[in-house]
């Protein structure tokens, strides 16, 4: 059942050819609303990556050792989202205790990330594709880095665009989508390098 793709290929593919935002459209709401300032976008990207890695790992363990043995597959959505919510809360407490400077920078984003579709999405993708543990973790890490990359690019461009003159109605979400479309188009150029779907 577990596909025999090298975890590193999965890692690279999830950044480039199957980018969370540019190819899978996941995590768009916060991607759009936080990408107006580069510094905050960068912080959010970091936070999302961290949460993705940890939740991918833990949810894999929960799926393999709790959900399947107890035959609760039909409840997987609820269980995954509860685990994600609990994890984010514990993560916030841990960061506050052991990494207070990081917590000062990223703390405000963490509650926002619980309902970010990219987090649940990564978990669901790894379940559908029957990834093994290492594959799942590297998939989570790559997805996070890909998301981070996309939001950094958009934020950098939007900061510059803030001073440019745009047609009426364009500024804000409209131009953000058009830019994202162009970047997505560029990334299609990478397809074929890695095949994981």
């Amino acid at each position, binding site marked *: 059942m577990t596909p025999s793709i090298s975890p590193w290929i999965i890692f690279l593919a999830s950044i480039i050819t199957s980018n969370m935002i540019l*190819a899978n459209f996941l995590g768009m*709401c916060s991607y759009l609303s936080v990408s107006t300032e580069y510094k905050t976008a960068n912080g959010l990207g970091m936070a999302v990556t961290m949460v993705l890695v940890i939740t991918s790992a833990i949810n894999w363990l929960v799926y393999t050792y709790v959900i399947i043995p107890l035959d609760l597959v039909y409840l997987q*959505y609820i269980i995954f989202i509860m685990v994600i919510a609990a994890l984010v809360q514990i993560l916030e407490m841990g960061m506050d205790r052991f990494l207070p400077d990081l917590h000062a920078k990223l703390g405000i984003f963490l509650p926002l990330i619980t309902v970010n579709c990219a987090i649940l*999405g990564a978990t669901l993708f790894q379940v559908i594709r029957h990834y093994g543990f290492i594959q799942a973790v590297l998939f989570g890490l790559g997805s996070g880095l890909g998301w981070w990359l996309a939001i950094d690019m958009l934020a950098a461009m939007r900061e510059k665009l803030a001073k440019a003159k745009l047609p009426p*109605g364009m500024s804000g979400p409209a131009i953000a989508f*058009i830019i994202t*479309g162009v970047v*997505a188009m560029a990334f299609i150029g990478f397809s074929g390098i890695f095949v994981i779907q």
Partner: protein
Amino acid sequence: MAENPRAIIKRNLFGENQVLRQILGICSALAVTNTMRNSLVMGIGLSFVTALSSLTLSAMRNIIPHRIRMLVQTLVIAAYVIFLDLLLKAYLPDISKQLGPYVGLIITNCIIMGRAEAYAQQNPPVAAMLDGLFAGLGYTLVLMIISLIREVMGFGSVFGMDINFLKLQTWTIMIMPPAAFFIIGSLIWGLTARAQRKARKEERA
């Protein structure tokens, strides 16, 4: 706060359309719009979940303790999504497979949470259900527009039915993600510009 049903319907379908004006629920709006059939199923499914969640949460609004509000909302929504997922798996298995994880992702769809938080919390059950239902239908409307463009230009078909007799040249990019971004960006552009023009006219009046 009794809002009359017509106002609720109009608001959710046009004035404050969840996707194009509030910019919510984008993730799934882009992912499933490559065919009209998938869009219709997704849209109706989401409308169903939003309507029932809003109804349930509104009925419970006075007994939910404030601290665990978000948790209860998530659980109620998740329950209805599981229900929807099982329905799809049973009666429309191939569509269910095509939609893949996006059905599960309805749980994190900002539209449902948004309506629960902004409307169902303060309004009676029937109004909340109507509000949820039409927010979902407004979303479905947008999805149908996007998928119409994408399917006709990308596959040369409408709802799976060939329209090659029109001799239209297919445009591959339409099937791919960038097209979705461009189309939705243009739609938002159009509506935002229109809203701004209206606002300016009202200011002068």
